[in-house]
């Protein structure tokens, strides 16, 4: 039977539920990352989404020091992040459908990686962070004890999908004719933010420069591997508008790669190769706009909400979070997370002042030590990966100098996001 999406009951979306019942009993024992390429050439199947995902998954198993036969669960985010391969003709199996080419189901991975002892599979749709929440809950509930959570992200064309449609239907009938999508939503929201807090786009520069710097300190990121260009403030201020006030350098670069995480029980993780990183909580935001577009009020309400849930379920407070890696897929929404979580006391409207200070990985406020998508190319898991590396003390040149015992990462928008809170201790 084909793997299904996890039921809505898996996701922790409400306040007032106290500590996560599996707090500290689930751990990350392995992580793996495939090489990053700019886009798939459509010929070399060794760089298909499927192949890259197997590469990442095998690296996660090697990192944990276990064999594929020990895996008993697989969760994937089966949604591709780019165009489909069709209507071009498919290849011979296992590349005879989109599965393995532009997206990846759990079933494809189990079959093509030869994971013969898998008894649990599930899908966390829309985002790898959704899949991570599903995986954490599944291990906590005992549905799987050694669970691979993976995503392959495809980019066939080398750019974002172009919409050739003359008509739009369903919910898109009310947005498509005006060209309203996520990019104008984020741009409009940022314009509202700047008006409300009397700030400007130019003041984003220090954050973008720092993200790219952090990315160039990550050997697994796209820019480290292919484009070692240091970004300057002048570069940022000169970047062309995509949707004013969003410029090109506020947008992430689509790439083709895959990421994998190996979750297990806390007890089991202590006997594996790496120092365990415990999961204290996972929680999710599922906001519904009042009408048409997301307003700044809704954005701030939802990011306040996700922060409260993260802290409540983990038992931590803002001042106890050492490593902080919210999603930056568009840089112009990062400040909502920073301010909602009040990391280092940053309140609403104060993010740009914070960016102007020392946010380097060497400093007292090592903001987004992963470099995010801005620094590494488009995935949704650089932050999750960096959290684990930081807490292991194995983030290399990005290793923060401050205490690194707790971490938060999540993605992807204020209205739809999933978050994990990590600790070096299960307590």
């Amino acid at each position, binding site marked *: 039977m084909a793997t299904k999406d996890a039921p809505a009951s898996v996701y922790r979306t409400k306040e007032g539920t106290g500590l996560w019942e599996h707090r500290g009993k689930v751990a990350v024992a392995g992580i793996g990352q495939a090489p990053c390429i700019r886009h798939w050439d459509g010929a070399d199947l060794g760089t298909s989404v499927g192949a890259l995902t197997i590469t990442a998954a095998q690296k996660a198993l090697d990192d944990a020091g276990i064999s594929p036969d020990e895996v008993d669960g697989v969760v994937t985010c089966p949604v591709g992040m780019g165009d489909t391969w069709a209507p071009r003709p498919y290849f011979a199996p296992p590349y005879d459908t989109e599965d393995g080419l532009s997206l990846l189901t759990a079933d494809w991975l189990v079959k093509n990686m030869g994971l013969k002892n898998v008894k649990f599979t599930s899908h966390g749709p829309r985002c790898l962070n959704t899949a991570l929440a599903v995986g954490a809950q599944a291990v906590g509930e005992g549905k799987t004890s050694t669970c691979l959570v993976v995503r392959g992200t495809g980019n066939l064309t080398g750019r974002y999908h172009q*919409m050739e449609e003359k008509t739009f239907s369903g919910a898109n009938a*009310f947005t498509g004719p*005006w060209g309203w999508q996520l990019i104008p939503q984020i741009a*409009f929201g940022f314009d509202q933010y700047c008006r409300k807090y009397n700030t400007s786009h130019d003041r984003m520069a220090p954050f973008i420069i720092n993200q790219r710097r952090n990315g160039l300190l990550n050997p697994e990121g796209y820019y480290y591997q292919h484009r070692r260009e240091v970004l300057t403030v002048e570069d940022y201020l000169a970047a062309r508008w995509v*949707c004013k006030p969003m410029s090109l350098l506020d947008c992430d670069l689509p790439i083709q790669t895959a990421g994998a995480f190996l979750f297990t029980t806390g007890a089991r993780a202590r006997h594996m190769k790496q120092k365990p990183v415990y999961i204290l909580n996972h929680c999710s935001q599922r906001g519904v706009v009042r009408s048409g577009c997301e307003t700044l009020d809704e954005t701030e309400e939802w990011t306040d909400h996700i922060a409260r849930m993260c802290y409540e379920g983990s038992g931590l407070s803002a001042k106890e979070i050492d490593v902080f890696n919210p999603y930056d897929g568009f840089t112009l929404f990062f400040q909502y997370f920073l301010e909602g979580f009040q990391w280092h006391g940053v309140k609403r409207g104060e993010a740009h002042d914070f960016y102007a200070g020392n946010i380097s990985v060497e400093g007292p406020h090592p903001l987004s030590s992963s470099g995010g998508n801005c620094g590494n190319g488009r995935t949704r898991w650089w932050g999750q990966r960096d959290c684990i590396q930081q807490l292991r003390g194995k983030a290399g040149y990005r290793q923060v100098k401050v205490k690194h015992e707790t971490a938060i990462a999540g993605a992807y928008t204020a209205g739809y996001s999933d978050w994990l809170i990590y600790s070096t201790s299960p307590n």
Partner: protein
Amino acid sequence: MPKPSPIADAVSKPFWDACNERRLIVQVCETCNRMQYPPEKTCLACGSSEHLGWRDVKGRGKIHGYCVMYDSRVRLLQERQPFNIAIVELEENPEIKFFSHLPGTAPDKVPVGAAVNLEFEETVMGQLVPEWRVAN
């Protein structure tokens, strides 16, 4: 080039038919007296599906905010670039928001907070859609 066209379905057909008659209507839940736009199968507040109706609105609003599109993914809109995408609050209920290209307003010269009046624009397949113009 005209905008892409919306395609009506069972829920939205009354809305798009009214547009073709140059009337703007908004879905209303009679149970909780709550407007909602875009229209839905149920009231998103109370869950009722049996007491959803429609109300004509006057066609006046205010600009809530905007952005300026320079690089749209929608091919049919690309020749207009750059163009405004404004968010208009309905006068009867500012929580109800419409999108608009603000015909008659130059790109990035949008008077946020200004009053706007409804008009209708024909899209590529002939369907009329609401648009909004800054009031004098």
